[in-house]
């Protein structure tokens, strides 16, 4: 029963992405940005003269960083604002099922976006001798990173009923993990520097996009995801 409720909620959310323009705008913008920089502009695949998708992973890391909060911002904030949260939680739905459903819907949307970039992979593989392992690991990294940011986005959306606040808060939390921890830790030595650098999404993602799958990286992203989801659940259950 638990599974079917989560699936029902996830399906509704995914449909609503495609019924509104959200999904199409996200897909077009994501493919546009990443395609442009991967194939056409700057140090693109042809300039580098190397058959890999490093450029794409570098761009996708940033585009997803901005796009995910835009997808997650309304997930809970809007339900709270319009009162539909009350409808859901007075039916046989508990906060955990609700949040899992929403999380899965967002993750599915990102996976659809990533699936559309598979032609990049196929093209590069036909041009040169691509490292299949590293590419796969890069995609896995993107998915894990997205999962963590979705959870952070849901958390931001769970504590407010204002979508803009949710968006900005998600970006703010995101930027710390994405980038600021890296910057700070690079100037520090010893255990503190190591700790901060271990908490950096950037560092974990970069190592995965180079083709190194370390359990530490996977645990890090999984932990961040669980923490985000757990906090969202706590905040949604709190005001009862």
């Amino acid at each position: 029963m638990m599974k079917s409720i989560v699936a029902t909620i996830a399906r509704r959310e995914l449909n609503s992405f495609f019924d509104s323009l959200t999904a199409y705008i996200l897909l077009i913008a994501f493919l546009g940005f990443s395609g442009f920089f991967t194939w056409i502009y700057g140090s693109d695949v042809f300039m580098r003269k190397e058959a890999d998708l490093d450029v794409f992973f570098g761009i996708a890391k940033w585009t997803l960083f901005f796009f995910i909060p835009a997808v997650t911002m309304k997930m809970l904030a809007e339900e709270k604002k319009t009162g539909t949260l009350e409808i859901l939680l007075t039916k046989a739905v508990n906060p955990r099922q609700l949040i899992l459903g929403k999380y899965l819907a967002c993750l599915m949307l990102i996976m659809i976006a990533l699936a559309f970039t598979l032609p990049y992979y196929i093209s590069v593989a036909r041009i040169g001798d691509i490292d299949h392992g590293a590419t796969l690991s890069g995609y896995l990294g993107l998915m894990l990173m997205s999962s963590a940011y979705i959870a952070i986005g849901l958390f931001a959306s769970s504590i407010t009923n204002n979508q803009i606040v949710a968006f900005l808060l998600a970006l703010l939390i995101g930027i710390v993990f994405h980038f600021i921890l890296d910057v700070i830790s690079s100037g520090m030595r010893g255990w503190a520097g190591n700790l901060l650098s271990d908490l950096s999404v950037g560092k974990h993602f970069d190592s995965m996009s180079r083709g190194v799958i370390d359990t530490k990286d996977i645990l890090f992203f999984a932990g961040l995801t669980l923490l985000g989801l757990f906090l969202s659940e706590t905040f949604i259950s709190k005001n009862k």
Partner: protein
Amino acid sequence: MDLKINGLSKHFGLQKAVDNISFEVRSGEIVGFLGPNGAGKTTTMKMLTQYLTPDHGEIWYGNRRSTENTDIRRDIGYLPEHNPLYEEMPVLDYLNFCAALQGVPPSEIPARIREMVRKCGLDDEKHKKIGELSKGYRQRVGLAHALIHNPKVLILDEPTTGLDPNQIVEIRELIKELGREKTVILSTHILSEVEATCDRILIINKGQIVADGTVGNLRRQTESRQIIRVRIEGPSQDNIYQALRQLPGVTMVDLVNREDQRYEVQSSSEEALNRQVFRLCVQNNWVLLEMTPTETKLEDIFRDLTIK
């Protein structure tokens, strides 16, 4: 399914929203929650539907106690105040979604949706998005999703707000029909609505129940007061007015309409007021054109109980 509420309380900060409320509702009974704004009606309903957790007290659904037993919600249909809905969803998709969440078996969902569309009169609008519907139709969608899983208990927070008079009558008929087999609790501040639909009234004020009974019962409680409307023809209106005032027990005389010579007389006397008025007219040789006893209005009972 019978409902039993025992010593229910809920605070928001320092404010007591609901203060030690107890009552019972039996299956097949329609109970109206009546009270001024902010009396605690909505908070009570939100606790009954498990949206809010009570600070103290128990809620029993049949023999199941409502403490995080979320299965109970499958037996409850709830129409919240303001009727929030997913604006961007088409009516049919929305009903399908609600039915799936409430655990209606997939094979039965289409039949249930057809029945709800028919019962709630949504046939012409069923393919539209909810956001495009008028307020009356939105309210019907709200009722339809509350009923989709055929719940045993129905909790409706102001079900007829925003409807036009025809729609109000239709919705009331629907509620009455449902009330024959289900346990229905509805809140309203429209008094005639309670009289028209409910078997029993609970008047709530400042978080407490101040009256509990049928409309008739409540009337009898406040029946120490008699009100009649009379039309008396006589030479001088002032004399009539003064004479009426001087009847024993009369507390108020109101000249309602000068041309019609229509008065409203209120009395708290033991003796029947209509007899007194009749004798007065005979003594003075006035013509009694009309005399109508007026029942104590529900409005008056309500005012009495909630303004103190």
